[in-house]
């Protein structure tokens, strides 16, 4: 780990000033990703700004929905009674990720800002456009079984590893941030970006901005939701493909449905055409298959991850079926309903 200086502000204003006062400064809270990256020399900050003493630790009523402070831990969100009753999809997705210890330390803001787990990004002996822009991408044509099948570029095929963000995407959450230019709201779908020709930029957050909260809109899907995560082992592994789905029904007819995919792109992957294809249709397997086909038409698999296309297709169909039936996937009983 490189040497760095350390500051511990107590207000958001101090924190924003501190992040702007050194080149290559980083905020740190849970540290579960950043400390790991520093041990691999992937991150080499000159300054760490410890934000754990900022007053961003509350879950609050906001515009009929809930605002989750950036420092609320993943475990606190997942087990909060209001989250469990009003946003069970979010609770389920968080519990599908990481381990008990990591969820106790990792924060909401840090989960949004975690980096990819691409092997080449983590290995500082290898070229990587995300870690060292312009050096190339060895994952393309290399070992890329876990990589993206949607929205890739010729500079980067990494995926965003979060489960929480996939649920937030389906829930149409927003991210409240602030910086020297003032506060602004970023829709979750615009918070993470596709790699394009700047894969070093994971998000649209400016370097001197800080996440204040993640806000959930006032919306009720009852039991019509699911977070279905498919991975190499049944717990404590990143998704190969995951699906977060929410649905509203009027009898057998779908009045609204939204779904996001994890493990397949540089950001939670939504497809507006597929979602609108569900509207007004009967909640049947044929309807779900048609929506899945719209999504996977855009798939561009790499040399080793062609299996993800069919896996994603089936996961979408199963996820939409679970949401329609009101039988969300359990995160402890791993049998897929």
């Amino acid at each position, binding site marked *: *780990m*490189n*040497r*760095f*200086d*350390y*500051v*511990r*502000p*107590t207000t958001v204003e*101090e924190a924003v000033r*501190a992040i702007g006062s*050194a080149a290559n400064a980083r905020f*740190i809270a849970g*540290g*579960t990703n950043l*400390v*790991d990256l*520093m*041990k691999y020399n992937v991150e080499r900050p*000159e*300054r*760490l700004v*410890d934000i*754990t*003493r900022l007053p961003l630790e509350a879950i609050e009523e906001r515009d009929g929905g809930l605002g989750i402070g950036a420092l609320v831990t993943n*475990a606190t969100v997942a*087990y909060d009674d209001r989250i469990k009753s009003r946003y069970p999809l979010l609770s389920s997705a968080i519990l599908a990720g*990481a*381990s*008990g*210890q*990591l969820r*106790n*330390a990792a924060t909401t803001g840090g989960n949004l800002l975690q980096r990819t787990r691409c092997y080449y990004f983590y290995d500082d002996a290898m070229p990587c456009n995300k870690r060292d822009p312009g050096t190339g991408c060895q994952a393309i044509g290399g070992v890329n079984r876990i990589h993206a099948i949607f929205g890739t570029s010729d500079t980067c095929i990494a995926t965003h590893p979060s489960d929480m963000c996939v649920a937030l995407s389906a829930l149409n959450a927003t991210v409240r941030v602030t910086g020297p230019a003032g506060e602004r709201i970023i829709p979750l779908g615009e918070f993470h970006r596709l790699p394009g020709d700047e894969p070093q930029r994971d998000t649209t957050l400016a370097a001197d901005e800080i996440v204040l909260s993640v806000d959930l809109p006032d919306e009720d899907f009852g039991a019509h939701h699911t977070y279905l995560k498919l991975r190499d082992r049944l*717990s*404590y592994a990143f998704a190969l493909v995951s699906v977060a789905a929410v649905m509203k029904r009027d009898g057998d007819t779908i009045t609204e449905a939204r779904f996001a995919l994890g493990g397949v792109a540089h950001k939670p992957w939504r497809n507006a055409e597929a979602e609108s294809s569900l509207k007004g249709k009967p909640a049947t397997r044929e309807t779900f298959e048609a929506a899945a086909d719209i999504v996977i038409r855009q798939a561009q698999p790499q040399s080793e991850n062609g299996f993800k296309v069919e896996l994603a297709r089936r996961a979408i169909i199963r996820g939409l079926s679970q949401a329609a039936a009101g039988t969300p996937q359990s*995160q*402890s*009983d*791993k049998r897929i309903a």
Partner: protein
Amino acid sequence: MLIDSGSPGAPAAIGISLTINGEVRELQVAPWTTLLDLLREELDLTGTKKGCDHGQCGACTVLVNGTRINSCLALAVMKDGAEIVTVEGLARHAGQDGAMHPLQAAFVERDAFQCGYCTPGQLCSAAGMISEGHATSREEIREAMSGNICRCGAYTNIVDAIEDVMHAGAAR
């Protein structure tokens, strides 16, 4: 600003206060020292193990303010003011001075280890998991303990031991 270690390139050791296994310790730590390295290398509390050092194995699990975390991914300086319990203090923390913690006794009774390297982390993680109170069934225990890897494969007996303690607690 509560703390400012100075200009980049010239970071000083920073004074922090930790309560470790019931004892208040005033310490000087470099900001890049992990809680795990502080415990093992500077305080000689080598019960907490370094397995992967990357948050993947759980051998370094300790309780910080009653909550289980991976000490390898925590910077000691950030835990200023916290109460830390390691495997050395687990029994005392549970009011079992001079005796084993019920989980330690159950691990012995159930033969819940082979090489023992993961055991301190398993014990602290299980203690944290029980106080969280979310897992009750065997499946839920397995899921909640998935952050603790046992390469000897003692999982079945580990879950047995944890179940024993949970059921004994429920009966009290």
